[in-house]
């Protein structure tokens, strides 16, 4: 009789212990992953400089022309965080979906001076300044906050691939895709020009996460 009773007691203790551990673990999860304390990762290669500090992958200086024919450089984004993407106006596939999602971000943070949006065309031969201006207008964007830029094709592809680390290239065989291959990524860049997140701009859930991450980054 002693044997079963003792094992029953052990089981009870075990249950209690397990119960406490689960509560403890949940508390740990809640406290450590609380949204306000959440930290965004740094994306890309990192190096250690002569002083021993970590140097994160950052976006170099750039120079493009916007929908009004004005020059846009990194200066426009000084003290701002920004989201960037690559598209072209005649794109029949993922671009309309990306623009629908980017519009959600735009509406959410409209008139917030801490956030800007930078959309690069990957088809500068067709997407001239006037084409971009008309596209922006028909999309209903009437603020400086969202910039559409064009420039030398080489420079655009280079900054896409090397700096923002997303794919963008011309592919004459991709007829159904409008002759270009590009990623549908939205890249989130912080005030120090470091990449803090990459999101699939064609998926509503990922863009929900981007919106949360922007809120977090704006608080810092």
């Amino acid at each position, binding site marked *: 009789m002693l044997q079963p009773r003792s094992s029953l007691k052990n089981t009870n203790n075990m249950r209690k212990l397990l119960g406490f551990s689960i509560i403890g673990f949940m508390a740990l999860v809640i406290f450590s992953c609380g949204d306000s304390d959440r930290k965004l990762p740094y994306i890309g290669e990192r190096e250690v400089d002569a002083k021993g500090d970590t140097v994160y992958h950052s976006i170099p200086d750039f120079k493009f022309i916007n929908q009004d024919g004005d020059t846009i450089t990194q200066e426009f984004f000084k003290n701002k965080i920004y989201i960037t993407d690559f598209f072209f*106006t005649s794109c*029949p596939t*993922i671009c*309309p979906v990306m623009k*629908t999602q980017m*519009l959600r971000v735009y509406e959410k943070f409209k008139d917030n001076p801490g956030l800007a949006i930078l959309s690069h065309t990957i088809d500068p031969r067709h997407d001239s300044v006037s084409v971009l201006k008309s596209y922006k207008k*028909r*999309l*209903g964007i009437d603020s400086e906050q969202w910039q559409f830029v064009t420039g030398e094709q080489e420079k655009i592809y280079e900054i896409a691939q090397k700096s923002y680390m997303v794919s963008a290239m011309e592919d004459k065989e991709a007829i*159904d895709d409008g002759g270009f291959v590009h990623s549908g990524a939205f890249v989130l860049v912080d005030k120090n020009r470091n990449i803090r997140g990459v999101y699939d701009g064609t998926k509503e859930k990922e863009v929900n996460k981007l919106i949360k991450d922007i809120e977090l980054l704006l608080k810092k």
Partner: protein
Amino acid sequence: MFLGVCLASCASPEQVKYEQYVISGGELYQTHCSNCHSKEGEGLRNLYPPIRQIDFLKNVSLVTCSIKNGLSGPMEINGKMYNQKMPANKNLYNLDIAQIITFMNDKWGQTKKLVDTEEVAKVVCE
């Protein structure tokens, strides 16, 4: 599935064919049309026109030719001007187009009538 069996067993052959066109047409619409015209057919602001409740849908020849050969130049829909090139969909068969048009009319048009392959096939585009 159960509903499908019910429909198949209770409905007339014409009704079954219509339901099949609507379902297949809906899938084709999602693949080939919804990126621009959106899932619910409302389009995107002043960039891509809506498909909902427009006179355009009544005109089988115009819809067929627009899908087959695309569209370009300014056009007015529901009192708004649009000017975005629509690409040609050369890979779609007449059956696909018939199903898409049947689906769009079922969902957004005024008539719930099957548009069959022959009707699409006899359309002559410019």
